[in-house]
């Protein structure tokens, strides 16, 4: 038995699709290419197999995602994760929030920031720089987006360069996209552990 995880956690759940994913054995050559399936890599997640229904999007989405989150220079990786986490909290994507809170904790070698965010949300006690990053990303993720000049000023005052601010815009916006796939197309689940 599995149950749906509804509360924010750093313990990454499994993701269970609400639609039937593409079956690997039925995949077209274009789908296999987008799935990066090779003889040495035949493991593909249910999430990616679900997205393979729209192979034109998947083909560009994966490299774009990696570039925004991992390309060198600009904003630190842990701060990009904070932007991703803020958006995931606004959209209540428990799966994305878990993955990116966990990555933040590991990159920062510190669990207190994400503990504090999960416990207190926008009231969390954060460093001035983390506060400016989280607040901008949280407001930018709202619908319609509500970040304003004062949030931009707070980022500059906290020491972010223009290049870093642009990276933050990209990483928090990217989760406007990712959350609307993960949270809409599936459920975060965990297997029941018998006592």
């Amino acid at each position, binding site marked *: 038995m599995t149950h749906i995880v509804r509360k924010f956690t750093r313990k990454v759940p499994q993701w269970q699709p*609400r*639609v*039937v994913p593409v079956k690997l054995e039925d995949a077209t050559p274009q789908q296999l290419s987008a799935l990066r399936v090779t003889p040495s890599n035949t493991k593909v997640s249910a999430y990616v197999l*679900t*997205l393979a*229904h*729209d*192979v*034109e*999007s998947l*083909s*560009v*989405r994966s*490299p*774009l995602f990696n*570039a*925004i989150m991992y*390309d060198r*220079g*600009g904003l630190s990786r842990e701060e990009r994760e904070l932007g991703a986490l803020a958006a995931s909290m*606004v*959209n*209540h*994507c428990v799966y994305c929030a878990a993955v990116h809170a966990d990555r933040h904790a590991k990159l920062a070698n510190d669990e207190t920031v994400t503990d504090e965010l999960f416990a207190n949300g926008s009231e969390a006690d954060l460093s001035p720089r983390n506060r400016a990053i989280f607040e901008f990303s949280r407001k*930018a*993720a709202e*619908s*319609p*987006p509500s*970040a*304003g*000049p004062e*949030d*931009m*000023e707070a980022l*500059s005052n906290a020491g972010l360069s*223009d*290049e870093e*601010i*642009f*990276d933050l*815009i*990209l990483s*928090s*916006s*990217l989760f*406007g*996209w*990712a*959350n*609307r*796939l993960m*949270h*809409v*197309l599936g*459920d975060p689940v965990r297997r029941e552990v018998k006592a």
Partner: protein
Amino acid sequence: MNLSSMTILSKAGVAQNSALSQVVSTRSNILEMSQTAEEAVLRPKKCGVFGHDVRAAIAARVAQLAEDETLAAFYAVDAGQYAVLADPQETGESQGLAAILAFVDKVSNCTHEVTAEDVSGLKTAGISDADIVRLCELVAFLAYQIRVIAGLRLMQRETA
């Protein structure tokens, strides 16, 4: 980098050779892939049940919901017979698209409230799994594009 060919930069009003264009050029690969992603969701080769005109109408509607009239006007141009659906007040009843537009509106602006029933509702309305994924990719991409544009407009005020 040709800024005018990229929706994100042209709709945010980032001028060629401006200070901001120098900043964003450090991520020109990301801007180029973002434009390719727009092609993939607005004008794909394989459309499923959603043709290019319906997709453009949905994009204009989503931009309107996000209060971005510049982007809404840009997409509305290609909406053809579905142009009326760009108005969020239109239900899509007379086009047989009511279930689809209700889903689009909820995923766009009330993402946190989406449940399994919203997806099963589309299936009941006869939408295939592949088309549900295509619809989500369209709406999800737009959420990204709208927010990058909004962010760049804010940066523009700062660097101007």
